[in-house]
């Protein structure tokens, strides 16, 4: 069974079909990149996969459970327990330190544990910046705090929306390297990006256009664990 499966998923705003009968599977441990021009439906797909929004039609199976039919409260629980979110604009709470931002995710999940939060920051190479506020961190460092925050509750899938969109090349490399390590550890990654270089390092790339899957490509040189990928 796939970790994530979208079956005939549509998202309709009035007469506009932001997503039009999308079918997509993501296996456990897979690294998938979603690409496409503006208005192609990337963010809508990310919102639906991330339980931030509901599909108008179709099924969204996460671990075999259709989250498209869940209430707002249940979707919050799904986000809390199963999904790690990374945003282009980082979205760190400005008045909390790096370690406190990581602990915030723990707080809404279970119990904040500073030691564990420090370990998460250590994984992303920011242990020495734990007591710094977001304004005292570079863009790359802020994004790495976001990654630590996304990882802290051991989610089943990490969704990254343009994770390198606000970073320079050096920081872009650091974040991509971080994703590579997470993937090696077995983390499932779905990365929405404009950047072909970022998309190329993923195992598979799906390209959206006008709310539909235009085409998909598999990175033949990638040495991931999942080899078999199905696109319906």
């Amino acid at each position, binding site marked *: 069974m796939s970790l994530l499966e979208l079956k005939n998923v549509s998202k309709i705003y009035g007469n506009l079909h932001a997503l039009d009968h999308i079918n997509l599977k993501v296996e456990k441990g897979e690294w998938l990149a979603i690409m496409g021009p503006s208005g192609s439906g990337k963010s809508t797909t990310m919102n639906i996969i991330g339980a931030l929004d509901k599909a108008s039609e179709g099924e969204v199976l996460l671990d075999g459970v259709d989250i498209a039919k869940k209430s707002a409260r249940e979707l919050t629980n799904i986000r809390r327990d199963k999904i790690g979110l990374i945003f282009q604009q980082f979205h760190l709470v400005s008045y909390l330190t790096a370690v406190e931002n990581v602990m915030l995710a723990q707080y*809404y999940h279970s119990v904040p544990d500073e030691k564990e939060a420090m370990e998460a920051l250590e994984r992303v190479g920011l242990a020495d910046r734990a007591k710094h506020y977001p304004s005292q961190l570079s863009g790359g460092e802020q994004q790495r705090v976001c990654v630590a925050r996304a990882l802290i509750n051991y989610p089943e899938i990490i969704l990254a929306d343009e994770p390198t969109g606000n970073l320079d090349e050096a920081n872009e490399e650091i974040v991509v390297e971080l994703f590579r390590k997470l993937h090696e550890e077995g983390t499932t990654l779905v990365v929405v990006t404009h950047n072909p270089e970022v998309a190329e390092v993923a195992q598979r790339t799906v390209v959206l256009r006008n709310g539909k899957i235009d085409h998909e490509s598999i990175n033949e040189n990638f040495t991931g664990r999942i080899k078999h990928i199905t696109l319906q």
Partner: protein
Amino acid sequence: MFIRMIAKAFIRQWKKMTMIAFTIALGASLATAMLSVMMDVEDKVNQELKAYGANITVVPKEASVVNELYDVGEENVSGSYLSEDELGKIKTIFWAFNIVDYTPFLNVEAKLNDGSPVTVSGTWFNHHMKLPTGEELDAGIASLRSWWEIKDGNWIDEQGKDKKDVAMIGRALAEEEGIGVGDKIRLAGNRNSKQLTVAGIYDAGGEEDDQIFVTLDTAQALGGLEGKVDSIEVSALTTPDNDLARKAAKDPGSLSVAQYETWYCTAYVSSICYQIEEVITDSVASPVRQVADSEGQILEKMKLLMILITFLAMIGAALGISNLVTASVMERSQEIGLMKAIGAHNPAITGLVITEILCTALIGGLIGFFAGQGFAQVIGHTVFGSAISMRPMVIPLVAVLVTVVTLIGCIPAVRMLLNLRPTEVLHGR
């Protein structure tokens, strides 16, 4: 983590929180001042209204019946009197401390030197009494008729050296008879005649300007009515009448035991009258309705005005809080969206925001409370010329008002917060 977030949010948003605290402090200070004055105003207004004279008159029972039948006014045609010896008992009733002043009157007819008839009224001016309770009291018309204008001379001083054989004469009579301060006048009463020195000329603005006021014993001597008085005027601090008081005024016997106890132990004018009748033999005490009713009406209107000001102040505070908290939530929409995105439920975020605002309200409320106490004292000294005593009841009332107003002020912000969708605020590019 919760406390850490609250504390850090405070530090980060100190300017906004200061504005919210200031708004709450303004509302709380007005509410505190108005409630403090409102709770103390009854005594203050009562004291003010005492300047307009007595609110209870006591007459012999027979005189009351005759007056009711024939409406003869103040003239004693019944030939019945009250006993001077019992006057001190008025300060022994249950509501003795509410009796702020009283004075007896004895009117006798006399003739002046030229034979013209004149009404001579014997009374206390500043009579000193030692009560059975050990209390000492100065009572008399000098304080009961505080609006009289002394045109010449002074009030008679009963405690001074020249207290004997002195008189005060009304302005109209003095002008008509050509009498001045220091002049000697001879008054011939039914029984005796006396030569008196004019100590002062007063302007009462009424029929009393044609009379002569003398000490009670002088009038008693003129009329041969030793130990007797016609009537007593009493100035008492009273509680405005309600249905119970009105029912009791008609017939105290119609009250149940519980109602009777409530009525008897409340300073209604009717219960004070009833208690005076209990200690003065064969007397009828009745409220001077005009004064008593005015007191009640003025008090009720003042209270209503203060409640209205409190209400408006609180509405103003609620609107101010509403704007500021809504602005704060709008400013923090990305932070709130993020919290929702990473698994925070609405109650958790609402709780966080409301706790922040309630903590601010606590600080603002405390500042407002103490400022309000100051305002109350300013009002007390400016309007009533005395301090407003702090009633403990004001504290919980202001606390409840501030809490309710703060929560009401948070409603628009909370609604916005509940409707905020993370997808709308997290994907800004």
